[in-house]
């Protein structure tokens, strides 16, 4: 029995060792460091943060990283109050926020925000005007814009959402959002809701789009990460990490890690476009 455990332990050690050797170069920056990094904020960032944290903690168990969501607003507030070391936002900080808390921003990726509808919906193209009409509550049935006879159900994000802010500014041009719109608390919840509701219209970060939802073209622009990267899709935003003042050594290492090629690979795998350093 003991023998078995020992073999198992040895295998584990060996695995860890090979793993750390394989990822050698960028993760080397963490060797010998220890401490805690708490991360909170934008929900779009979570997959990236999680993968990065997984690799770092596997290579160096002395470092503990905790990741919470909550939305961009939470990110600003918690990092501002000093509750976390990194607060993620899916939008640029306002001047008031920077001034109030003394925050420093580190953009690391680009994400597009796209309208999504149920795959069963026949509509394939929308214009910005139509979207404004839909969200203002003026267009209430899909047949008014060439779809089937079905009532439109609106989905929007909560006020703390960076996705909402981008959508609101760049696509709606700060137009009205009807109060009857359903409010969902995250990108994932948006996708779940739209995937289930045949009459739904909502918006998510492009990284979240998969086969369960459909993203119609917008004013002729096809929403995809390539188009967002080359500038032919304009409803985009940057994803930021924010720290209160200059980051500590450990946090700085974490941020730098995401800007290495390995970091870029993680970002790409999560569906975003890495920002070249």
């Amino acid at each position, binding site marked *: 029995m003991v023998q078995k*455990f020992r073999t*198992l*332990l040895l*295998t*584990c050690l060996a*695995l*860890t060792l090979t793993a750390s050797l394989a990822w050698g170069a960028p993760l080397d920056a963490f060797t010998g460091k220890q401490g*805690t990094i*708490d991360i*909170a904020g934008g*929900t779009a960032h*979570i*997959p990236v943060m*999680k993968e990065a*944290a*997984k690799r770092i*903690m*596997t290579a160096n*168990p002395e470092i*503990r*990283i*905790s*990741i*919470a*969501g909550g939305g961009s607003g939470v990110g600003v507030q918690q990092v501002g*109050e*000093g*509750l*976390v070391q990194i607060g993620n936002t899916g939008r640029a900080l306002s001047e008031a926020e920077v001034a109030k808390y003394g925050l420093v921003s580190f953009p690391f990726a680009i994400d597009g925000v796209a309208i999504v509808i149920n795959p069963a919906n026949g509509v394939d193209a929308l214009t910005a005007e139509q979207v404004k009409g839909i969200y203002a509550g003026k267009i209430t049935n899909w047949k008014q814009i060439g779809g089937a006879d079905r009532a439109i159900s609106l989905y929007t994000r909560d006020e703390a959402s960076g996705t909402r802010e981008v959508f609101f500014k760049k696509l709606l041009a700060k137009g009205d959002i009807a109060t009857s719109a359903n409010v*969902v*608390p*995250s*990108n*994932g*919840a948006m996708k*779940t809701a739209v995937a289930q509701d045949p009459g739904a219209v909502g918006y998510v970060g492009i990284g*979240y789009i*998969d086969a369960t939802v459909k993203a119609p073209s917008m004013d002729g622009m096809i929403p995809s990460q390539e188009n967002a990267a080359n500038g032919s899709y304009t409803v985009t935003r940057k994803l930021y990490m924010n720290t209160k003042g200059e980051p500590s050594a450990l946090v700085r290492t974490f941020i730098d890690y995401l800007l290495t090629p390995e970091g870029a690979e993680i970002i790409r795998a999560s569906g975003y476009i890495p920002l070249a350093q």
Partner: protein
Amino acid sequence: MLALVGVLLRNGTGALGQALFFDSVPPLAAITGQVPVWDGIWPACVGTLSLLALTMLLALGPGIGCGIYLASYASPRIKALLGFAIDLLAGVPSIVMGLFGFTLLLTLRHSAAPNAGPCLLLASCCLALLVLPVLVSTTRGALEALPRQLHLSGAALGLCRWKTMRHILLPAAARGILSGVLLAAGRAAEDTAVIMLTGAVANAGLPAGLTARFEALPFTIFYRSSQYRDALDLQQGFATTLVLLALSLALLAAATRLQRALDQRWQGIRTNRPTQHADRHA
């Protein structure tokens, strides 16, 4: 209800397995915490259990103590006043309790402990407050439901108030009190709203101490239901609900067994029922 469980089982069983708990990390290494688990729910299980233990540790003493106090020590005025306060506390929604934890934290940060953050201890304190009224009122109820004669018997035998309580009333009411404890533990294990605001996060690994953030099963379920990215994630979500369900039911079963054992130890062993019946008419 059965349909609900059925659907959960159908959708969830597929994902039940080692991978659900430990992802790709070898179980032994994961359990001992040598290798952090990221996509498994093992840290959440440990988180929930430690949260539960800490909460009950904090709540049991004052809860049961206050229940006893109200049942037999308090003056009528205090009884009415404190009883009302407890009823009010019982009605505080869990999200408001979470909000309280949050305000408490902000206050602490601006005064005594500038480095305090959301953590296991804070979450347990708020959860303890949440389940306190359950403990107090079931303890009080169980004691007050005992026949008045039992108080008199104790006194007539020359036992003082505390000894009557300790040796006669408490054991007689143990069953009721235990069901209160169970109810409280159940609420503490399932509550999401409180810990959402006071320390539960999506990923933290095994709980690292009282002042660290932690993962918890109910929060993980809530998180997966809104953040899942693919079918596997969803299936794991279902499986996680099954795990939480199993945990709750295990708690229930354990308490029922304990109740039976207590009864037997206290009341004596019931044997040969037929003869006993004959004795009655002897």
